[in-house]
């Protein structure tokens, strides 16, 4: 072999070696994360009523492959009841910590802030500035009652007189529906209240009942520890058919099991509107909506965790997702699910609105009452929950 051939073959083999080593490195490097190429992961914990809408929006958002500083933003949504989430925040059990929390109501955010202010000396969710908690949509408690039952109650207690006090009277009727003027086959009056340990709406329903019992909008610990009130509340809760059910989300129960499980209850307006059609296809009797005197509003605030676990880029990515949720098309999708949009450009008075579609059954685009139940403090809520555990759940 002459020198030229030797050099030639050496070059060829060196080239092959370089290609081979590159190939091997490429194969192995697939398992090594490259920080610059990693997407920005947004972990969103959403309250149960709003989660399906947020989940759908997240899918659309992810499909658009939006990016920030060259990194794709990926949104992952986890459904979680706000009372459960509140407990996890209090105990520091979130691992990893969510980037965004969308609870049922702003007051839950304030409760978490109160906990962390004591620990850290500062808020973990902001109430002003660029990263402040912002409502995405609103909804409110309203009575959903099967029409035949509502008519019977109005005959018994008077027109437009469905409220916690008359519902209590119906609940304690020993003779059941026949005593109230209804049919024997209806059994006793059955109230729907979500399990407050599984659904924040259940806790707020008890607060709303206390409001009407005392005829005021602010409820204190003293109010809920009053033995007379507790007796009254226990009698009321005695009409709930099943607190152990799988569903923490009881409009679904109302639709699926019909009047056999619940004659009615104070539930989220959006849930009622969405299920009105299904109830009519499954059960002969339609549902009617009645708005209470004291309104309990849910504002579903988009709150960004301001702790060290959230980086600056994640906060800004969260803002992008928030903007997306507030955009007109996504807000319209929320309206189609029975929510009242936060974006004022989106109307709920259109012909295809659920509020218009069900107006003959009591739905209103504008709620006339302005008396709003105020959020109780943490001690009052904890007292109610403990009372529930000891007197009802047991």
């Amino acid at each position, binding site marked *: *072999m002459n020198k030229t051939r030797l050099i030639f073959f050496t070059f060829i083999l060196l080239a092959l070696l370089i290609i081979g080593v590159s190939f*091997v490195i490429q194969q192995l490097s697939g398992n090594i994360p490259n920080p610059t190429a990693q997407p920005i992961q947004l972990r969103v914990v959403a309250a149960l009523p709003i989660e399906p809408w947020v989940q759908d929006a997240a899918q659309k958002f992810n499909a658009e492959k939006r990016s920030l500083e060259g990194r794709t933003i990926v949104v992952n949504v986890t459904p979680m009841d706000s009372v459960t989430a509140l407990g996890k925040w209090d105990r520091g059990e979130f691992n990893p910590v969510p980037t965004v929390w969308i609870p049922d109501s702003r007051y839950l955010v304030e409760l978490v802030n109160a906990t962390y202010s004591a620990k850290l000396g500062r808020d973990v969710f902001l109430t002003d500035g660029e990263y402040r908690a912002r409502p995405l949509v609103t909804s409110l408690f309203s009575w959903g009652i099967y029409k035949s039952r509502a008519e019977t109650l109005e005959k018994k207690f008077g027109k437009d007189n469905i409220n916690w006090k008359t519902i209590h009277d119906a609940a304690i009727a020993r003779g*059941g529906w026949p005593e109230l003027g209804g049919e024997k086959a209806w059994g006793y009056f059955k109230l729907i209240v979500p399990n407050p340990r599984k659904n924040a709406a259940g806790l707020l329903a008890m607060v709303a009942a206390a409001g009407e019992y005392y005829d005021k909008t602010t409820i204190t610990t003293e109010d809920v520890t009053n033995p007379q009130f507790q007796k009254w509340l226990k009698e009321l809760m005695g009409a709930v058919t*099943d607190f152990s059910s799988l569903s923490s989300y009881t409009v679904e129960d109302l639709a699926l099991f019909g009047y056999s499980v619940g004659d009615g209850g104070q539930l989220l307006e959006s849930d009622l509107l969405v299920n009105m059609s299904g109830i009519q296809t499954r*059960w002969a009797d339609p549902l009617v909506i009645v708005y209470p005197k004291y309104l309990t509003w849910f504002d579903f605030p988009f709150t960004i965790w301001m702790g060290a676990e959230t980086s600056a880029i994640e906060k800004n990515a969260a803002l992008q997702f928030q903007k997306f949720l507030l955009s007109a098309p996504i807000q319209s999708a929320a309206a189609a699910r029975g929510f009242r949009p936060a974006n004022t450009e989106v109307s709920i008075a259109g012909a295809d609105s659920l509020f218009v579609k069900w107006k003959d059954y009591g739905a209103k685009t504008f709620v006339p009452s302005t008396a709003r139940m105020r959020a109780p403090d943490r001690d009052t809520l904890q007292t109610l929950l403990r009372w529930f555990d000891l007197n009802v759940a047991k």
Partner: protein
Amino acid sequence: MTHKYTPRNMKKRKNPPVKKSPPCALLVFLIVIGGMIATFCGIGALVLFVSSFESTTTPTTATLDLAYSPEKDALMQDLIARFHKANYQTPSGLPMRINATRMDAADMVDAARAGRFTAISPDSSLWLAQIDAGRQRALVGEAARFAVTPIVIAMWSDVAQSLGYPQKQIGWQNLLAKAKSDPNFKWSHPSTSSASGLLATLAVFYAGANKTRGLTEEDVKNRAVLDYVSALEKTVRYYGEGEQATIDQVLKRGRSYLDAFVVSERLVIYFNSKSPQKLVAIYPVEGTLWQDHPLALLEQPGLTDEQRLTFRRFRDFLLSPEIQKVILQAGYRPVDLNLRLDEPVSPIKLSNGVDPAQPQTTLQMPSAAIIEIVQAAWHLTKRPANIYLVADTSGSMGEQDKLTQAIDALDTFLDQVQGEHDRVGLVPFASRVYNVIALQEIGTHRAMLKAQVRAFKASGQTALLDAVAYAYDDLQRRNDRERINAIVVMTDGIENASSIKLNQLVDKIKRGNASGVPVVIFCIGYGSDADWNVLNTLAEATGGFARRADPETIRKLYKILSTYF
């Protein structure tokens, strides 16, 4: 390949020898090339090693271990087959699979707590509450129901009419009054290990407490309530292993088997589709309960993201419009409210004995703690039993440790017999029946029975039929209608020493069961040479069963049998 591309070969193939090349240059060249090849081989081996290591430690499927309740066996088998056919994969490319096991709901609670499954689908979500009862951290994770069906009292239409149906609204009180007043009225509900059995028991407790809601711990422990429940439970003909087993028996035996029984609405539709004789579903006026068939993920330690994805995919599959329609066609009410119950494909219609506008009301579901008390109380109040253990000690039982296994099984069984209520007797046999211990309450002679069982020796032939006839005759002679009368046969062999023939014995049993006390026979077969024709014939003649003596059957023998008592 290495050989093919060595320079030596290339030289041989393509080049003539080059004498002018200095030998040391060639040596250096060969060393360099050899080093490169070695490097290549080393790196290649490393890559192969890494990839093979990964392939042995990474699962090849994302498998969900699922337990489901027995009454939806056919539906689940169908749905799981469809799911597998769809070939779903995780984003990492793992095939999604469901490894399904049929199991009654009460056992599912224990198995879930023991970490055996990553997902469950019992007949009711009330079992989910029992899984998490008393736990610091919830085991039950994401859950969704995919089908519902109300629990009803199934009756022959003339039986229902005799109670006033359809002019009068009837319910538990009518059924219970009929059972108390008419000794020939035969009714049944499953044991409390299924939702329908639990509901029926709750309904009896509610009736005893004269309530339709607000059942308290004091109520279920009240002596008068317990006496009422006990009196009624004594009128139950059989409990059975579950509602599907009850329906199968009614299909096989016809209307003489039972007058009324508690099952889900779905099984009334199923029965009416198979039988010319029709049942009607009575939705009790006091209220009923629903089976809501949840699919729940269990947050077991070690649950992988892939398994979680498989769960979600399967859940979404079950909730898809196409599968919801399949569920409706199977007689369940789908959770998809867009599907109407009066769809053309829907079997939920009056002509099938069921009413889509029912039920009107439900009984109030007590807390998990009260349900546990009801279950425990039911075991004490239900009808006690007279049980004859007919044990084969023939020579062949000495082979393959069969006698040892049978002794262990009997020993376990005798340990498991609860309370002082049941009476147990022993009929050992080989070439003939010998050393019989007559029926006595277990509390007084458990030790004696166990001692005799421990002393068994294998010898002689197999007079199986004579031994069964002996036990049967004794039960008929006693004519104890207060109790359920049962014979448990443990044998390995082929009948070869009896004086009575199989057809004679079956005739005797059929006549005796019709005119005297009904006796149920359960057969446990050991080894491969057990005569299954004989065992099945005896069991089927009485509504019992014949099963192989596998460890699971033996371990749970008393529990299984007790569902019939």
